[in-house]
C-alpha cells in the first residue's frame, strides 16, 4: 500500500526534534564575541590585556565582561571569540582544577600542562567539526620559566615572546615585536604597562569592536593578578580632518 505523505506548507518550520534527513548542521557563527587579547613576556613574567566588551554582532552589547581568567596559581588565560564557548571552557577548567585539588598530592598543574590541555580540547573539537569559536592566549610561569602560547579554533598552536589575537594580530603585534622581541628579560613592569597601553590604545582607535574599558593582568613569581577595569587616555582631535567616509 502506498503511504500517505502530507506536505507541510512552506511557511511551517520543521520542528527540530523531527529527523531532518539532511546533513548534520552546526552553529557556524559566533554570537557574542570578544575582540583582541594582547600578551607578552617581560622581566618579571607575563603581561596580558583585554577589553571588557562582548559584542553582539557590531553592537556593543555587554560592557562589563572579563575575558581574562586565572587558571590555578601561576597561569593566566585570555580569550578572543565567542563568550559562550569561553564559559564552557571556564567550567571545564574549573572542574579540572577541582579534581586536581582533590588529589591532594602536592602537585600543581603547570602552565605548560594547562596550555597542552586547552590545545587538545581545541583540536579535539575542530576534529569533531564542532569547534569552540575562540582564540586563547595562555601565559604563566612554569618551573621558573616564562611560558606564553596561543591556540585557535583549528587547534593551531605556537609559542612566542609576544602574542596578539584577532585584530591585535594585525595592529598590536608589530608594535610588540618592535619593543619586546629580544628584550623579554629587560622590560620593567612600568615599561611593560606602557607598551601594553600603547597597543590597546591603537586597537581602540582602529578596531570597531573594541572598547575603552579594559583589564590588565600579570603573572609573576608572586602569582596571578588581574586589575580592575580602567580606561586609556585618547585624543580624537584628528577626527575633524578626516574627509570622506560619509562625513
Amino acid at each position, binding site marked *: 500500500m502506498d503511504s500517505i505523505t502530507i506536505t507541510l506548507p512552506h511557511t511551517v518550520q520543521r520542528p527540530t526534534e523531527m529527523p531532518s534527513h539532511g546533513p548534520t548542521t552546526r552553529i557556524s557563527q559566533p554570537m557574542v564575541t570578544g575582540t583582541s587579547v594582547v600578551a607578552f613576556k617581560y622581566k618579571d613574567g607575563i603581561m596580558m590585556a583585554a577589553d571588557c566588551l562582548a559584542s553582539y554582532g557590531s553592537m556593543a552589547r555587554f560592557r562589563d565582561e572579563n575575558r581574562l581568567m586565572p587558571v590555578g596559581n601561576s597561569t593566566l588565560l585570555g580569550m578572543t571569540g565567542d563568550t559562550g564557548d569561553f564559559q564552557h571552557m571556564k*567550567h571545564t577548567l*574549573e*572542574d579540572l582544577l*577541582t*579534581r586536581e*585539588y*582533590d588529589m*591532594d598530592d602536592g602537585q600543581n598543574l603547570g602552565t605548560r600542562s594547562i596550555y597542552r590541555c586547552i590545545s587538545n580540547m581545541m583540536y579535539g573539537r575542530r576534529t569533531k567539526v564542532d569547534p569552540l569559536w575562540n582564540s586563547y592566549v595562555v601565559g604563566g610561569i612554569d618551573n621558573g620559566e616564562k611560558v606564553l602560547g596561543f591556540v585557535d579554533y583549528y587547534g593551531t598552536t605556537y609559542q612566542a615572546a609576544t602574542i596578539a589575537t584577532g585584530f591585535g594580530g594585525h595592529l598590536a603585534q608589530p608594535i610588540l615585536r618592535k619593543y619586546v622581541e629580544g628584550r623579554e628579560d629587560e622590560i620593567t613592569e612600568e615599561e611593560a604597562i606602557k607598551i601594553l597601553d600603547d597597543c590597546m590604545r591603537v586597537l581602540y582607535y582602529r578596531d570597531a569592536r573594541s572598547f575603552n574599558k579594559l583589564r590588565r593582568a600579570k603573572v609573576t613569581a608572586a602569582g596571578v593578578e588581574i586589575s580592575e577595569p580602567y580606561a586609556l587616555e585618547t585624543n580624537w582631535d584628528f577626527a575633524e580632518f578626516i574627509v570622506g567616509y560619509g562625513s
Partner: protein
Amino acid sequence: MTSIGTGYDLSVSTYSPDGRVFQVEYAEKAVDNSGTAIGLRVKGGVVLAVEKIKHSRLLVPHSNRRIMTAGRHIGVASAGWMSDTRHLVKRTRDEASHYHGTYKANIPAKIIAERMGMYIQAYTLYSSVRPFGVSTILATVDVDGPQLYMIEPSGQYMGYRGCAAGKGKQAAKTEIEKLDLDNLSVRDALKEAARIIYAVHDETKDKLFELELSWVCAESNGLHTHVPQDVFDEAVEYAEKANDDDDDDEEMEDDDL
C-alpha cells in the same frame, strides 16, 4: 555460629522477627574496628581528626589518607573499610561536581549529606549488595556557616556539633561533650581534636598510628585542606603534653592507693 543472627543475617533484604537488619549492624561492627575519626564544629569552622592505624613501619608517611577532599570545600573523614571509603569519596566528588555543573554554586552541606545518605541507604535494600562498612563524616562551610554531618552504614545522616566514629568513639564522645564547642576557636578545636585522638589511642592494641588533621575555615580560605605543618606540630605538642599530664595524675592516684 548458629546462635548469632539465627538465619536472619544472611541478607540485607531480610528483617529479623524483632525488626532488625543484621547485615547493617555487622557493617557497623566493621566501622567499630577502625581507628577513631572525629569532627568538631566550632564558631569559625570545622575540624576533622583521624587516628590512622598503621600496620607497618614500611608505609610512607602521609600515604593512605583517611581524610579526603571532595569539591574543594568539603572534607570527608571516615572510619571503616578504606576501599569502601574511596568509593564513597568518589561519589561525593561526583555529586559535588554535578551540583556545581547545574547551579554554578558549591553544594550545601545538607544536600550533599542527604544525597550521600540516600546513596548509602540504597545499599541496605537489596540482597545482591553489601552495605558500606563506613561511617562518613562530612565537614564544610556553606552559606549557613560551618556544617558537620555524619552518615552511618544504615544511611542515617544527622548534623552534629561534634561527632566520633570508630574504635574510640565512646571515649571520644565523652571528651567532646566536655568541650564548649560554640565558643572554641578553630585553632583551639584542632588542639582539642588532636588531644582526643591521642587520648583514645590504645597503645596496647595498636602500636603505630599517624594523626591526620584537617580544617575548613576562614584561615583555609573556605577550602578543605590538611592543616599546615606548623599548626599540626602545635596541636600535637598540646596533645602530647595534655596526655602526659593525665598520665602523671593517674600515677599520683596510684601512689595514693
